[in-house]
């Protein structure tokens, strides 16, 4: 059985089984969106899931615009993205 990987999302702890992608780690930790669109500020997360659509872009270890569906979670990884509830919240 594989062990747990400890990483952070916006400085909060994020734990997932070794072998998962960043996107899967976020989803299974209850984070369904981590990017807001440029024009409308709409929340986005995984869509195509196979590296085609670039909707799931996220900052990983200071490297911007990484596809969360393509990057594998590693120990101590620092993931940064938009908070899910910041999109169009103040209505």
């Amino acid at each position, binding site marked *: 059985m*594989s062990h747990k990987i400890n990483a952070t999302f916006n400085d909060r702890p994020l734990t997932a*089984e*070794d*072998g*998962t*992608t*960043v*996107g*899967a780690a976020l*989803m*299974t930790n209850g984070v*369904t*969106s981590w990017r807001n*669109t*440029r*024009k*409308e500020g*709409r*929340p*986005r*997360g*995984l*869509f*195509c*899931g*196979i*590296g*085609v*659509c*670039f*909707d799931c*872009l996220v900052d*990983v*270890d200071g*490297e911007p*615009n*990484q*596809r969360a*569906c*393509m*990057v*594998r*979670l*590693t120990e101590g*990884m620092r993931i940064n993205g938009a908070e*899910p*509830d910041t*999109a*169009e919240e103040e209505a």
Partner: protein
Amino acid sequence: MSSSQHYDVAIIGAGPAGLAAAATAAERGARVVCIDANDQPGGQFWRHRPEDTHPEDDGSLHHDWKTYLRLRAGFDAAAAVGSLCFYPGRQVWMAQREDNGFTLRTTASAQAGRAAPGPQTVRATQLVVCAGGYDRQLPVPGWDLPGVMAAGGIQAFIKANGMLPGKRFVVAGTGPFLLPVAANIAEAGGAVAAVCESADLTGWFPHLATAARVPAKALEGTEYAKSFLKHRIPYRTRTVVTEVLGSDRVQAVRTAKVDSHGRTVQGSERLIEDVDAVGFGWGFTAQMELPVALGAETRVDDDGSLVGVVDSQQHSSVPGLYLAGEVSGVGGAALAVVEGVIAGRAAAASTAAQSSAAESSAADVRLARKAGTYRAFARAMHLAHPVPAGWQDWLRPETTVCRCEEVTAGDIAAAKEHLCATDARTMKSMTRTGMGWCQGKVCGFAVSCLAGTEGASAESLRSVAKRPVSVPVTLSELLTLEDEQVLETTTDH
């Protein structure tokens, strides 16, 4: 520094077609290089858990896992003796044809985490493109909400991570592929509220004789019927999702019936609530950037997808360029494997000094017959599962069509009416559709349909697939082109 190695045959992609092509070409004496965007072989069809953490995949989520294991054994054996060089985790961002073959520029699929090492430049005499495809999408109100995914994306998530991207799913679109996606969800412990298939399955009746000729192992449907019964998955034909509802993520979907002309039936709407994940798939789009960039002749197939024109050896109109799998016609994994074997044999034969014509001909006939049977089946499938003619009726002016640049159906309609944007290329100039990160891979088909008058024209689809740089790269990577030219010029003189 032009230290790139020169190979006999380069294979792009390590899915069903690529694995078969690589193993076959290496077996026949060619020096082969294979490049794949993922961390390990298998492609989308045989995507599996990471082999370092889960070495004993039992293939329970997979169809025809035995074929994968057989191909993989050949692939690994070739790699072990050095006749095959495999670069996983890298993507070809540009392909060029030169006098003595092809030059491929590669980049790591991810710049963070375990960025995969590999040569920036690869050269080969023959090139086999087995780039596969991805779910074709039609926009629908609310499809940009988090929780909505490509049907194949949901399946990839399950296969790669052993987890689910939601709890209660609706899977919608058309084609037999919706069945394994729903079955995978149920087997992984998720609930499937409904599978909405837009087609009326009587579309299969005229083709039953064709379908019956396909070996049972290619017919996935029968297996999934059992799974549907076991997990009580409602399978609704002539049904489409006309709207996804939710504030900051999916909460419900609205469905409607479609009539025999593919138009939604007024008053047939139903609301399915408590849904947190939706998977859409309207057939597949082949990854045509590299063949198009290399100048390969293309055609619009029975499913409306742009694919490459090939001869009986999978050879394209470009000398030395072979296409196998979805890029020569969407037809599934069983056909892709056969095409990969044919292309691998042909590519290896054209680089080899000796020819073994007598030995080949019997096998060639057998392979050609097999491919023909699978292709007839694929054609029956395409004709039985068309994109419903009335899909544009679901759109509202504010519905997002281009997800990257946030271009709406209203923007597109206005550009068509007032700015004469009647093809995908003009639409791009006028509205920015297809100008974002994905370069029109997701919205290209829909925009081609919306701009045109009778579906997506070949011209529009070609313009959508025309991307000299096929994946985003950094400026420093672009600069390597310049450096190399300078160095090569200086060494020449």
